[in-house]
């Protein structure tokens, strides 16, 4: 599964709130803070050649969604999503990521937050980013607010690079995957302009037929060592039906009635 880069700097949140303004402006961010439409973020210490090089704060990408909701006037939803972002930032996945970022040399932590993974970066850092992305997608899947029809997402892999564009192809197992052209400068700004790179395009509706289209760096959260021939389907693999002593204790009770959310009539 291709997921948008799960962490952002303040500027991306401000841009989502005030698309036409300067992303470095202080006032829009103060507004977001005052209304609690943005989380506190996570602070990490940066290192350079000769020791400490200051601190930076990074945020869960859910804050971008919260800022868009705030811009559309849905204050309660914005506050709720910002709280979800804060929960995420307080979780073990962010703690692990923060710890690994603080060990990076030469201000590399800033590049990682911007979507660039160091060439010789530790595998643990890639895993930590995948864990944060995976948790973020989990929260998106559980919350209808986070799949708003006002945002259309196109996630894919760059299949071709020309002088002015990259060809972004949806990642699907079927032969009918769709593709779109993305200006090379947009892909480059998202740190994704090479064949094989993962990129997400987010069309953020403004009004009527207009939208802000943002190129966001992406990560493949399934890019981990794969199942050793295990199939959850059918009867071929006995592991799907074998259970442990803990399972026996769990199943020993009386099964509760099944939950049917939508009344459905089945004919014949």
């Amino acid at each position: 599964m291709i997921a948008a880069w799960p962490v952002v700097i303040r500027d991306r949140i401000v841009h989502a709130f005030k698309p036409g303004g300067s992303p470095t402006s202080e006032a829009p961010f103060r507004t977001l803070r005052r209304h609690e439409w943005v989380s506190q973020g996570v602070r990490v210490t940066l290192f350079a050649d000769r020791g400490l090089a200051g601190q930076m704060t990074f945020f869960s990408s859910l804050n971008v969604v919260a800022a868009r909701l705030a811009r559309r006037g849905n204050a309660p939803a914005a506050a709720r999503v910002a709280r979800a972002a804060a929960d995420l930032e307080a979780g073990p996945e962010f703690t692990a990521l923060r710890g690994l970022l603080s060990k990076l040399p030469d201000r590399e932590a800033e590049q990682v937050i911007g979507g660039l993974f160091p060439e010789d970066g530790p595998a643990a850092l890639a895993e930590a980013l995948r864990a944060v992305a995976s948790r973020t997608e989990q929260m998106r899947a559980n919350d209808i607010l986070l799949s708003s029809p006002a945002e259309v997402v196109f996630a894919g892999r760059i299949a071709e690079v020309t002088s002015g564009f990259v060809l972004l192809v949806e990642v699907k197992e079927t032969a009918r995957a769709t593709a779109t052209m993305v200006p090379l400068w947009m892909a480059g700004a998202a740190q994704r302009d090479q064949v094989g790179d993962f990129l997400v395009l987010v069309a953020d509706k403004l009004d009527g037929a207009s939208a802000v289209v943002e190129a966001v760096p992406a990560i493949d959260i399934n890019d981990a060592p794969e199942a050793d021939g295990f199939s959850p389907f059918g009867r071929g693999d006995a592991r799907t039906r074998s259970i442990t002593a803990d399972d026996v204790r769990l199943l020993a009770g009386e099964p509760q009635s099944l939950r049917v959310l939508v009344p459905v009539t089945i004919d014949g």
Partner: protein
Amino acid sequence: MTETGWRIRLGSPDDRALLASHERVILRAGDGTSFPATKLEVVGVALKWQGRSFLAGQRASDVLMSAVMTDVSSRVPPRDARVYAIVHEDNHRSLAVCRRHGLTEEMSRPHPSYRRVVTPHRDR
């Protein structure tokens, strides 16, 4: 073992949008303890229906899962009320659908990458 599978048709006769199947299985522990259960084999929503809702606001996936649960509970002879599914741990949408439909308990994993979720039980 018997298995059932069916499709719900939406739109034109060729527009097969939703597909599901379940089967009765026996879950067995190392000491021989066994439980009859229903395994959700496949619950699939066609690409163009993924994330979409009907006019009344229900998600296509919720309608399909409701149909599955209705079918499981109305089988003659009855299918056991222990309903479980095996889902890849990164398949968050499917895990969310399972949770909404009551598959809230976590059993042991049949593989490190796959979760096994089941409907809840009360103490006898």
